């Protein structure tokens, strides 16, 4: 009996080893694969039909036509009827978070890394829709919401998902629910003035301590505290770079500033990208003024809704990019003629020459896909290049990651989506999603989808 058991156990053990070796042979290097497909849309100006993409160690190393040479140790996958393209990019969303906002109105210390849930259905659904990069940031019910980051929708830990952690800070000009804009702006101004007060107080303290130490040294008592104390915050001075000079300003270090307020100092220093929530045209007006007064206009990205089309010329003046969330139409009644007026906002932005990106509307069927939003723009008369750019390369540019995501270029991430038709065709299905050279999604093994299509197998 025991001998038999032993035999079974050994064969049992062999099996996974065999499997492992098989998988090992199939990708000689981690994150390397080559695809030869019917069409490659690079979003970089060229389209190859048929086309080939070579990914090595998570980065794209070559893109070309059917005759592109593939390194010997990279596995080639051929899909002659499929289309390969960089995948959609969701510019600005608060999905996948534990909750969109905290109660605290001014919260520059918050960071989405603490509340992204990698196993949330949100990310699974995004993979199914062919979205390969998401800008996750706190919601709009705040004054200063916190930091966001750009993630890919695949990965078991937050670190594995992160593509870039310097997406920026969320600031809302459109009032928090129940507030008016004057209270909102007052709160914002209050936070800044409180920061200024606290910095000046702290600087005074440091100067005072420095004087005390100097006296102590004179009296020959050695000071004991060392400069390095092992924590991650910088102890060297000169952290505060904005605003007027005050005594002791250059002595302030990151460590000296209260944790709660460090984020605000970063904002005012101009080190953070600012996603300014200006839903209506009036908010754009006030938001732009506020940013100009603080000299931060160059770091702003306007997050607007359809009603902001009236401020298109203000946005043009500011020269900053715009991301459109929610519905793309604005409907209102002309107060004089009483006729209904419908405005398709992307057309207004395009004609004004703005760089804009589109967001999806998760509450509706159809607009929940970025491809659908882009296709709607084409229907309303926008050129295909502009519509596609609004959901791929423009978001990447807004994140400052245009060389990494959004387009298939040499040295960009090996992130792409394989679809069985044109990405903007409503009937195209997402076949596979590859993120940095590893397969993140395969339609055939999507258990939930297969169960839906074929019925429960058991």
């Amino acid at each position, binding site marked *: 009996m025991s001998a038999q058991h032993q035999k079974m156990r050994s064969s049992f053990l062999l099996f996974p080893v065999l499997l492992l070796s098989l998988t090992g042979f199939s990708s000689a290097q981690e994150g390397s694969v080559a695809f030869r497909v019917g069409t490659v849309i690079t979003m970089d100006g060229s389209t190859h039909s048929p086309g080939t993409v070579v990914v090595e160690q998570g980065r794209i190393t070559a893109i070309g036509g059917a005759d592109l040479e593939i390194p010997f140790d990279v596995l080639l996958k051929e899909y002659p009827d499929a289309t390969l393209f960089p995948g959609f990019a969701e510019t600005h969303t608060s999905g996948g978070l534990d909750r969109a906002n905290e109660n*605290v109105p001014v*919260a520059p*210390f918050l960071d989405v890394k603490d509340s992204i849930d990698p196993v949330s259905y949100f990310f699974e659904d995004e993979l199914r829709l062919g979205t390969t990069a998401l800008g996750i940031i706190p919601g709009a019910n705040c004054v200063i919401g916190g930091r966001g980051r750009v993630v890919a929708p695949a990965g078991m830990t937050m670190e594995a998902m992160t593509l870039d952690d310097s997406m920026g800070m969320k600031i809302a000009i459109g009032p928090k629910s*129940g*507030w*008016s*804009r*004057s*209270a*909102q*702006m*007052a*709160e914002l*101004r*209050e936070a800044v*003035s*409180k920061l200024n*007060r606290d910095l000046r107080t702290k600087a005074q303290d440091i100067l005072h301590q420095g004087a005390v130490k100097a006296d102590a040294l004179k009296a020959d008592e050695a000071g004991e505290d060392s400069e390095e104390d092992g924590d991650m915050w910088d102890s060297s001075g000169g952290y505060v770079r904005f605003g007027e000079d005050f005594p002791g300003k250059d002595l302030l270090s990151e460590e000296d500033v209260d944790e*709660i307020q460090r984020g605000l100092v970063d904002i005012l220093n101009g080190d953070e990208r600012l996603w300014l929530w200006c839903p*209506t*045209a*009036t908010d754009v*007006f*006030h938001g732009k003024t506020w940013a100009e007064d603080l000299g931060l206009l160059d770091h702003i990205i306007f997050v607007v809704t359809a009603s902001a089309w*009236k*401020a298109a010329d203000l946005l043009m003046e500011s020269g900053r990019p715009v991301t459109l969330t929610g519905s793309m139409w604005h409907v209102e009644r002309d*107060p*004089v*003629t*009483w006729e209904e007026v419908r405005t398709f906002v992307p057309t207004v932005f395009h004609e004004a020459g703005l760089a804009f990106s589109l967001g999806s509307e998760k509450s509706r069927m159809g607009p929940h896909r970025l491809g659908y939003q882009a296709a709607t723009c084409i229907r309303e008369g926008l050129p295909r290049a502009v519509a596609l750019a609004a959901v791929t390369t423009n978001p990447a540019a807004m994140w400052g990651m245009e060389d990494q995501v959004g387009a298939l270029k040499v040295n960009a991430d090996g992130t792409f989506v394989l679809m069985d038709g044109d990405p903007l065709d409503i009937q195209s299905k997402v076949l596979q999603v590859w993120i940095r050279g590893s397969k993140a999604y395969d339609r055939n093994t999507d258990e939930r989808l297969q169960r839906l299509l074929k019925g429960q197998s058991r």
Partner: protein
Amino acid sequence: MKMSFPFLAALLFAVPMTSAQAQEDLVAFHAKEIHLYGGGVLENGWLLVQDGKVVGGVEDEEALPPFVEVVDFGEKIVIPGLIAADAPLTGAGNQGDHALGAHRRAWDDYSPFQDLNKALERGITTVYLSPDRNRLVGGRGAVVKTAGSRRVLRKTSDLRVSLVSSAFSPPTFFRPPVPPTSENPIRPATPQAADSLPGAAMALRESAQLALSGATDPHSMAFAEAIRTKASLRIVVDSVAGIRVATDLAKEWDMPLILEISKDLDSTLPLPAAVTSLIVQTPLRMSFGHPSFRGDDSMPYLGDVVVPGSAARWTWLWEASLASLRSPRNEKSEATVLNRITSRAARVLGVQDSVGTLLPGQDADFVVMDGALLDSANSVHRVFIDGQSVWQRPERMKGGTVLRAGTLWTGLGAPITGGAEVLIQNGKIVAAGKVVPHPAGAEVRDAGSDAHMTPGFVDAGNHYKVGSSADPSALLGLLGVNARFHTAWRTMAAGGVTTAVVGPSRGLDTGAQYFAVKTGAVLPKDAWVKDHHVVRFDYGRTNRADLAEKVQSSLKRGKKYAEKWTQWRDERAKWEKENTQKTLDTRRQEENGLRKRLAQGAAPEKNVDEKEDVVEEDVEEKEEKDTDPLNGVWEGVIEHEMIPEPVPLTARLYHDGNTVIGVFSSPMAPPGDNEAELEGEWDAASKTITFSIPTEMGDVVIRGEIDGPDHMAVHVELEGIGAVDFEMNRTEIEEASAAPVRKKRKKKDDGPAEPEKDPRLEGMRALLEGRGVAVVRVSRMDEARTVLQNFAREKIPVHLEGLAPTKEVIALLKAFQAGVVVDPDLIQRKENVDYVPAAVFHQYGIPTAIQSQSRETQAGSLPEVLAMAVRHGLGVEVALQSVTYGAATMLGLSHQVGSLTSGMDADVVVHSGTPFALSTRILHVFAQGEEVVAP
């Protein structure tokens, strides 16, 4: 109210008489009254605006600089743009937590994209934006304009403090420390100031002290800044104690005080002397929801500035100011009404350097209004901000026109003197009387207290464009393509003749049809009085002996003809009833059959109707195989909105190669002259025939296209003027033979067909069916008697023309209750004395109507001709009756024209004095509500 001389001089000298370049964008606005400020009126003057600012005003047209653009507002008045000292556009809502928030700004809530049309509709050009209303220290207000390109007047204007009860229960303040530590734990929410008036006063004093001693929290810093820069302190109170607190605080902080009283306080208590600016909320009672009280305290404090109370809309500023005149202690003057919401409001808000008056140097913000300043229902017509028109009353908000004059002749009864009005809406008279309702947005046209208003005149006999032809089809020419728009109609209308009964000058013995044409109509649908005819008979050249016979025979023919029609109508009704029943039955049968067949899986059969057609056409197809597509007799009916009745047309076409000869005839044409032979072209490829008829107005091109067997689509065009499209069907097919064979074609049973229209008897038929009035020209008594007797027997209303007013005539007319249509020569001479026959007729109670018998535009001189008649003894009222109500009643038109009463066409003539006096001229004529402009 003229301005005092120094002001006048200042204004005139303010006019820039410098280079022509500087006057390039200079605009002069003219209006009946320009109120530069309350009490300063420029009457019939021009306001000069350049680059968005007022530069001056002139009284004389000569004093205007050359090459200046003039905008004329006519009889309207101009006032400075209204200033709302408070508006709920901002400052509402559940806002933040601080009770003391001097750092809050209403400017942050300013929405440049907000729709302020409802404010512009009421003439409001400047608005105060309030910071938080429900907190002790709300913040800093702002002043903006409601439209235009330079909208911001003041970003921070005053500091608003609220001592009313709504500020006395602020929410508790709760901001938990993040993160809470043992040194900085979460504490319970702290209550905020204040719960009562003394508490509020104390809190304010403490806060001010703290602020001035250098506290660094945002509120204190902003508060200190406000106090140091001596910003206006705007305090809202609702109690007498509140007034005292307010004045004390203002004195302590040494800030100018603007006191706003939000409740009806007892005004017997005097205001402290320190109060220099007072804003009062005027209650406007719109519904019965508020307790009523009567007596002197119905209007409490008389403030410098008014705003509507909370029960009314904030945009009803003008109404609030007018309501403030209710107080008996208030001087009822235009000046106060205006100043309260313009110049004084500007001073209180601190923007008096830019807005509030129309004196030189101020922004050109003004409002154009209809009606007098204190009119109970005047309305805003246009709004200008910075010299640009920013709002104009849209069409759908226009309420109509109100015409005002000293005397109103409605046509019925005695005239209304001492001022009367007429309200016109949509081309009809809605009301006429001493006072009529003034709908919002109505335009008021005041002709002055010397003016008289009368209904439009009815010309009982007019032959314009018809001439002497007794040919009823000549009416085609009359109301055809070009005549409708002839300026001669407008000339007649400008003379006051708004209704003209038009027809051929030679009456037939069977009756020539006349139409009552509205001379001022613009749309074809208004062009004539529908479904009513005046039929003129002329027995002038008949033998004495034959007259009775003739009259009777024509009546008999008419009756027979009319009977044919009545018979047809009955048959038709019967047939239709049967037919609907039959079609319903057949359809039900078919449906059941179809259902059965479908249930059995078979295809639905072809339509039964089609089968019938096939059967019918089989008979004819055999002939058509070799038949020519064109030859034959074609029949069609021309129908067009310009033509009063459809015209049947018959054409016999025969083509030989490429030439077509067509013989056109119409049963409506007079016999003997009813065929016209034309030659044209035939294009076999496209199957079109083309005829071209040269006329004096251009070439008339008739083009027919055969688009189906026996069917032709015809297009008649007169270049540049218009076109008519109609269809013709072939009723007979011919080969080469030219002899028409009248073959009845078997048609689908369409019910009994209409009997053929005989245009010569149509008039009779109208009379016999009660759709008309007859006018008969006679020359002798016996003729008159015969006619009257015979027509009376058939119950046809008849009036005579051509008789002199002798006793017998008058007796006869009275016996038959007939009236007289007098000849155009109103003044006759008898026994060497001038007299007016119409006057004599009227003396004896015979109604008269006046006709011009004009061939061209002579009817337009009706008022002058009547004036001469009046001079010779025709009374004014008699003259008026015979061209308005009396004539309309006689001719059966009184349901639509002839009087100024509710429901009639809005045809009004405005005279400069007593109508038909030699020294009177016609000021305006309105036809269907639109003013007629003489060509």
